[in-house]
């Protein structure tokens, strides 16, 4: 049995998902590569968004990949941490805004 569910070396094996289903994998990777191309947003902006999102989905592989990726693009540490705060603010805000739902229910149930 593997000692951990997450193994850093598995990141390199991402492409191997094609072994079990090549066609869908190809579609996914083509799409993925196109998404990250320079477009209306720069590659750098996209990498920063990816860094923030990877913290939201809490994917250790993506955090690894986009930490290195943004460093390669010369993104500063402060900018990287600000991106993480954006993720945290949305996560925290998303929880809190559901508080309204809780409050609505409380009000409905209360006399």
């Amino acid at each position, binding site marked *: 049995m593997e000692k951990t569910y997450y193994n850093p070396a598995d990141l*390199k094996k991402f492409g191997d998902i094609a072994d079990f289903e090549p066609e869908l994998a190809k579609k996914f990777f083509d799409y993925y590569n196109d998404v990250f191309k320079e477009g209306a947003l*720069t*590659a*750098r902006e996209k990498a920063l968004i990816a860094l923030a999102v990877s913290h939201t989905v809490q994917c250790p592989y993506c955090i690894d990949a986009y930490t*290195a990726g943004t*460093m*390669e*693009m*010369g993104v*500063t*540490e402060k900018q990287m941490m600000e991106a993480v705060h954006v993720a945290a603010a949305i996560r925290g805000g998303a929880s809190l805004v559901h508080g309204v739902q809780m409050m609505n229910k409380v009000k409905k149930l209360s006399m």
Partner: protein
Amino acid sequence: MPKSLQAQHHNLADKATQLKILSNGIFADGQLPTFKEKIEPLNEYPLKPTSIEIFQVNVGYMCNQVCKHCHVDAGPDRKEIMTRETMQQCLDILRKTKIHTLDLTGGAPEMNPDFRWFVEEANKTGVEEIIVRSNLTIILANPKYHDLPEFFKKNKVRVVSSLPFYQADKTDRQRGEGVFDKSIEALKMLNAVGYGKAGSGLNLDLVYNPSGAFLPGDQAGLEREFKKELKEHFDIDFNSLFTITNIPISRFLEFLIRTENYEDYMDSLVSAFNPAAVKGVMCRNTISVDYDGHMYDCDFNQMLGLKVDKKAGQHISEFDLEKLENRNIIINQHCYGCTAGAGSSCQGTVA
């Protein structure tokens, strides 16, 4: 100030130890292919020169800085320096051949007492271009260097300078406390005499290399970013930005091993191997000369003590253009640094 590996008597100051690390371990046990195994199927082994166009002369390992990533292991404690006699031999070669570029490097080349003489004499040989790889801070290190910008201008030297980042923190972490502010000051002095200004004909290029165990990003994107930031915050102009990959030798190798990044870094270089970059590696059109007049395929091979193929003659006193242009280039795993991603050379990306 930190010391060079040599002054620390560090085991990695030894070239043979470095070569052992690069040849053994993950490469010997088959985890990663050797560079030779990688280029053989491309019909690029043995790696051959095209023609010799650039004469890169390392005039000494002495430097006023002790940068963490230095592949030369340069520093104030290094005393190896090229003599005027050896420089004279280099000048004779420039006069005799069609080599178009003289590329002066170090250490801080300006610290060689015969540096100015060499530049002036080189100009008389008819060589088309003289490049000086200046670390910038040397211009401010001592009043005797303050007029270097005028000297460069007078001799139409192309200045290529390292600036790892457009902000102080990363630059200082890599190159030493206060280096960023002094570099900015020096860039202003170069701008003031016309360097980097449109229409002046005086070229000022910057060199970016990653401040750690990762690869450089897109050269054009980083150049845009550097230009914008340096203009906005410091009113500095320059011509081009060259991105250079850190080569896993000397102090950078020491950093990789100490921080347990060596295997991952080599793995990322191998994964990013770009067959198209092999065609443009700088050893194919360059000869690198050390302070003693020995010849190497590149500055990195120089630091690993890998002289050019014996059959081509290993000292400038035996310089033979034809033999050199037909030699086999000596390779090892550090060559992956030149062929990762868009490739890397003294002039930035190659593919």
